[in-house]
C-alpha cells in the first residue's frame, strides 16, 4: 500500500487541508468559508428586517443598525458571493478545460488564505470596539468622520482579502489561457469557463482602483493624509469615483459567472446545446467591457452636471442589449429541448423572470432624471436585490444542487431541494417586490427606523415576513447539505445528461483529476462522446507519469503575517498603544520571511508514477472497474 491510499488520521486531514494546493480542496474550503459568511450576513439582514418590521421599533440601536447594514453589504459582496463563486470556479474550471490543476496552485492557496484571514479580521471588529458603520460604499466624508476603529477594520480587512481576490483572478486567467487540453480551443470552452475568464479579467482591472482608494483612506486615517479631507484641499468625490470604478464592475464580476453557471444548467436539463454559443461569448465580453463605462450612474445625484449624467445614462442603458441577448438565448435553448425540472433547473427557471425584473428596473434607473427620485430610496434596494438574489444567489443555490456530486460525490435530496426553492423564491419576491413601492412612496434606504403615518407600515411588515421565509429556505438548504453526508455515492455523470468534461471523470475524482489528458473534439465534449456511444472520453496521451505540486504551509504563514500586521496598523494611530508599531513590524517580518523562504527554496513538485496511479484507481474504483 502506498502513501496515497492510506487512511489518514483526523489531524493529518486537517493539516492536509491547511497546506493543500489542490484546486478541489480549495474549492471546498471556499464553499465552506463562503457559506459561513453568507449565513452571518443573512443573519444581519434578518436583524435589520426585524428592526424595520414596525414603525419606531427599538429592536436594535441606530448605531448598531448602521454597523449591520455596512457589514451585510460588505460581507455579502466581498466575503460571501465572491468566495462562493470562486468555489465553483476553482472546482470546475480545471475540470472543464481538462487540466490537472490551476496554473499557480501555490497562489491559489495564498489567495484563499488572504481572503479568509482578511474576512476574519473584518469580522473581529464586532468584538473589538464596533464594526464599520459608513455603508459598504464607505463614502469618504462619513467614513473619515466615523469614530473608533470600525472603518480601519474595513480598510485593512478589504485590502487583505482584496489582494487574495486579485491573486485568484490572475490565476484563473493564466489557467484558462495556458492549461486547456488538446483540442479545447477558445470557442470550444464551456460557457462557465468563458465567464470565469472574463470575470477574472474584470477583477484584474477593477480591484486596483479599490486598492488605491483603500490605501488613500488608510493614509488619511493612519497618518493624517488629506486625500479626502476637503478642509485641507482634499476631495470626497474622488473616493466616490474610485469606489464605483471598482464597484460597478464588481457587480459584473459576480453576475457573469452566475450567468455561466446557468448556461451549464439550462442546456443540461434541456438536453440541447446552448443556443447561440458564439453570441453568448460575445455578449459576455461586451457586458464586461461596458461594465467599466458606466460607474457614474451611481453618482447621478452627486452633481456631475447634465453632460456627464446624459452620457452615463445612455451608456448604462446600452448594457441592457447584451444582457437581453443572453436571456433570449437561454429561452431559445429551452425551446425545442426536452426539459427535465430538477432542482437546479427549477432555480434556472426561477432565475429568468426574476433577473429580467431586476434588469428592467436597472434601465429605469439609468434614466438619470428619473433616478433623481429613485436614487438612495428603497427602489434601488429592491433593484439590486433582484439582480443579486434573483441572479447570483439563485445561481449559487441551483449550482450547489447541480455540482454537489462533483464536489462530494453525493446528491442533494431533490424533494427537499424543491421545497427549499419554493420557500426561498416566494420569500424573495415577498421581501423585495414590495420594496419598489416603498421607495416610490418616499422611503430612503439605510434608515434604522421610520415614524408612523407615512404609509409604509404594512409593506415593511410584508417585507420582513418574506425575509424570514428566505431565512427558512437557507436553513433548509443547509440541512439538505448536511443530510447528504449520509447519502449514497453519486457516481459518474449522475444527472445522466452531463455535457462537459467535468461529468466524464469517474467519481470520486482522483487528486490528479485526469489519469490521461482528454482530447477535445468539439463543444460539449462529454455529450459528443456519449452520442457516439463511447463510455470514456478520447485521450490525448497514454497512461504515464503525472507531475503534481507539493503541499505548502507558506501561503498560510504569509497570510497570517498580514493578519498580525493589520492589528498593528489598526492601533498605530492610538497614542496610548505604542506597542502597535512592533506588532506591525513582526507581522510584516513574518510575511516577508515566508516570501523569502518561498523564493530561495526550490519546490519542483513531485512525479506520480504510473504504478501509483493504477494503485490509486484500483483503490478508488475497485479492481478493473469503472475506469
Amino acid at each position, binding site marked *: 500500500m502506498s502513501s496515497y491510499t492510506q487512511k489518514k488520521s483526523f489531524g493529518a486531514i486537517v493539516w492536509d487541508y491547511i497546506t493543500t494546493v489542490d484546486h478541489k480542496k480549495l474549492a471546498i474550503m471556499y464553499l465552506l468559508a463562503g457559506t459561513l459568511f453568507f449565513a452571518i450576513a443573512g443573519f444581519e439582514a434578518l436583524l435589520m428586517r426585524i428592526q424595520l418590521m414596525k414603525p419606531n421599533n427599538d429592536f436594535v*440601536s*441606530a*448605531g448598531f443598525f*448602521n454597523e449591520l447594514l455596512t457589514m451585510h453589504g460588505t460581507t455579502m459582496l466581498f466575503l460571501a458571493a465572491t468566495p462562493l463563486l470562486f468555489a465553483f470556479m476553482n472546482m470546475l474550471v480545471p475540470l472543464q478545460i481538462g487540466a490537472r490543476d490551476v496554473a499557480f496552485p501555490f497562489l491559489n492557496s495564498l489567495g484563499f488564505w488572504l481572503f479568509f484571514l482578511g474576512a476574519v479580521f473584518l469580522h473581529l471588529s464586532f468584538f473589538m470596539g464596533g464594526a464599520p458603520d459608513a455603508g459598504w460604499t464607505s463614502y469618504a*466624508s*462619513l467614513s473619515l468622520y466615523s469614530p473608533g476603529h470600525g472603518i480601519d477594520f474595513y480598510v485593512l480587512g478589504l485590502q487583505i482579502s482584496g489582494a487574495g481576490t486579485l491573486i485568484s483572478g490572475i490565476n484563473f486567467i493564466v489557467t484558462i489561457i495556458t492549461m486547456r487540453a488538446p483540442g479545447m480551443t477558445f470557442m470550444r470552452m464551456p460557457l462557465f469557463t468563458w465567464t470565469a475568464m472574463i470575470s477574472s479579467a474584470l477583477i484584474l482591472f477593477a480591484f486596483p482602483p479599490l486598492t488605491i482608494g483603500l490605501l488613500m483612506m488608510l493614509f488619511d486615517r493612519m497618518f493624517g493624509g488629506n486625500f479626502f479631507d*476637503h478642509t485641507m484641499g*482634499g476631495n470626497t*468625490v474622488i473616493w466616490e469615483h474610485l469606489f464605483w470604478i471598482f464597484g460597478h464592475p464588481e457587480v459584473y464580476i459576480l453576475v457573469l459567472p452566475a450567468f455561466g453557471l446557468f448556461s451549464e444548467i439550462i442546456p443540461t436539463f434541456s*438536453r*440541447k*446545446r446552448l443556443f*447561440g*454559443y458564439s*453570441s453568448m461569448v460575445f455578449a459576455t465580453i461586451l457586458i464586461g467591457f461596458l461594465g467599466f463605462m458606466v460607474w457614474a450612474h451611481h453618482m447621478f*445625484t452627486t*452633481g456631475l452636471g*447634465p453632460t456627464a449624467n*446624459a452620457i452615463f445614462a*445612455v451608456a448604462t*442603458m446600452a448594457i441592457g*442589449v447584451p444582457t*437581453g441577448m443572453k436571456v*433570449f438565448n437561454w*429561452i*431559445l435553448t429551452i*425551446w*425545442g429541448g*426536452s*426539459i*427535465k425540472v430538477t432542482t437546479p433547473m427549477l432555480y434556472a427557471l426561477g432565475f*429568468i423572470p426574476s433577473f*429580467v425584473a431586476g434588469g*428592467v428596473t436597472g434601465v*429605469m434607473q*439609468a*434614466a*438619470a*432624471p*428619473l433616478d*433623481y*427620485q429613485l*436614487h*438612495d*430610496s428603497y427602489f434601488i434596494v429592491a433593484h439590486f436585490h433582484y439582480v443579486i438574489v434573483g441572479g447570483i444567489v439563485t445561481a449559487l443555490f441551483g449550482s450547489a444542487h447541480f455540482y454537489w456530486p462533483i464536489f462530494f460525490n453525493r446528491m442533494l435530496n431533490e424533494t427537499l431541494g424543491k421545497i427549499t426553492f419554493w420557500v426561498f423564491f416566494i420569500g424573495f*419576491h415577498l421581501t423585495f*417586490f*414590495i420594496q419598489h*413601492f416603498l421607495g*416610490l*412612496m*418616499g422611503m*430612503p434606504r439605510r*434608515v*434604522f*427606523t*421610520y415614524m408612523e*403615518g407615512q*404609509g409604509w407600515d404594512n*409593506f415593511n411588515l410584508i417585507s420582513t415576513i418574506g425575509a424570514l421565509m428566505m431565512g427558512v429556505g437557507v436553513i433548509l438548504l443547509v440541512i439538505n447539505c448536511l443530510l447528504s453526508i449520509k447519502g449514497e455515492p453519486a457516481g459518474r455523470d449522475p444527472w445522466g445528461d452531463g455535457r462537459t468534461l467535468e461529468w466524464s471523470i469517474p467519481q470520486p475524482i482522483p487528486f490528479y483529476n485526469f489519469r490521461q489528458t482528454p482530447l477535445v473534439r468539439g463543444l460539449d465534449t462529454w455529450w459528443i462522446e456519449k452520442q457516439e456511444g463511447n463510455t470514456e472520453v478520447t485521450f490525448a496521451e497514454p497512461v504515464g507519469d503525472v507531475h503534481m505540486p507539493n503541499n505548502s504551509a507558506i501561503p498560510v504563514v504569509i497570510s497570517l503575517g498580514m493578519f498580525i500586521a493589520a492589528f498593528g496598523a489598526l492601533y498605530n494611530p492610538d497614542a496610548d498603544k505604542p506597542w502597535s508599531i512592533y506588532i506591525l513590524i513582526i507581522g510584516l517580518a513574518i510575511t516577508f520571511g515566508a516570501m523569502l523562504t518561498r523564493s530561495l527554496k526550490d519546490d519542483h513538485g513531485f512525479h506520480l508514477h504510473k504504478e501509483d496511479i493504477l494503485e490509486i484507481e484500483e483503490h478508488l474504483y475497485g479492481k478493473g472497474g469503472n475506469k
Partner: protein
Amino acid sequence: MMKGLKKWRLFSLLAVMMVFLSGCGEDYLSTLKPSGEVGKQQLNLLLMTTIIMTIVVVVVSVIYLLAFVKYRRSKVGENVIPKQVEGSHTLEVIWTVIPIILLLIISVPVVITTYKFADVAAMDEVDAEGNKTALTVNVTAKLYWWEFEYPNQGIITAQELVVPTGEKVYFNLKAADVKHSFWIPAVGGKMDTNVENLNKFYLEFDKESKDLKDGVFYGKCAELCGPSHALMDFKVKALSPEAFDAWVASMKATEGQVADKNAVDLGEKTFANNCLSCHAVSGVGGPGVGPNLTAFGDRNRVAGFLEHNEENLKAWIKNPAEFKPGNLMMKQDGSEPIYGQLTDEEIDALATYIMSLSVEK
C-alpha cells in the same frame, strides 16, 4: 410544478392588487403623487419606462412559459434527443435591434430632461434695479438638521423650508460636515449636498401645503450620514405668493431680536444664558451653530420628527442624544448636553419660551 407556478402567479396578482388597494402612498410624501412640475415630469418618465419595461417582461415571460409548457420531457418523451441547434442569425439580429430601438426611444426624453433639470441660469438674472429675480434658497445640511437661508431676502430659518407656489425655487446645496442628500419626494427628485462644492438645482411647488394632513410636505435626508440619518427629516411649507411675502416680511421684522440675560421670565433668561450662543432668535442674520429658532413656535415637529408639543421639547432639551444619537448638542464624551444639566423648573420655562417664538401667530 404547474401547481407551484399557479401559486406564484396568484401571489404576484395579490401583490399587484395590494398596491392598488393601498393607493400610491401619501400625497405629502409619495413620488407617485407629485405636487410640482419636476416631480410630475419624473413621474411621466417613470410611467413611460414602466410601460415599455412591462411589455418587455410580458413578452419574455410569454415566450418563456410557452417554451416551458411545450417542451417538457413528460410531453416530449423520455428518450428523445432534441435537435442540437447552433443558433440563428436572424433571431440574434431581431433581439439585438428591438432593444436598441426601445432604448433609443427612452433615451430621447431622458437626455432632454437631464439638461432641463440642470438649467439654473435664471439664478443669476437680475431686474432693472440689480435685484435677483429668482427666489434662491441656500440649503446647508448639518448633522442632523437643515438650515435654509434666503440670501436675496436676508433671512434665515431651519428645519422648515418655506416656499411660494407657482414659481421656480432655486437651491444652492452644501453640507457642513458630512455628505447628505436633499430630497422632497412629493415635489421632485433629490440632489446631494457635498462637503466641497455647491450643487444647484430647482424645484417647483404647484400646490399649497395647508390642505395636506400635517399642512406640510415631508423632506428627507437620502444619504447615509451617521446614526441619526433616519431622523434627519425636514418639512416644507408651500404658501401662496402673497402669504410667502407676508412671511418674509414678518421674518425681517424680527431683526435684532435677542433673549435678555436679565429678563424677568425664567425661560428667556435661561435661554439667554445657555442657548443663545448657538441658537439665534432673530430671522435676520447668517448661519448659526445650531438651528435658528425664530419661527420655532410655527413648526410642525420638534427636532424634525417628534410631535410638536412642550412635553417632547422638554424631553429633547433634557437629553437630545436619546432622540437623535450622535447629534452635536451633546458634549464630545456624550455625558451631558453642552449647556449642562438644567433644573426641571428651568427646562419647563425654557420650553414655554421657545414655543412662544413665532412669526406667524
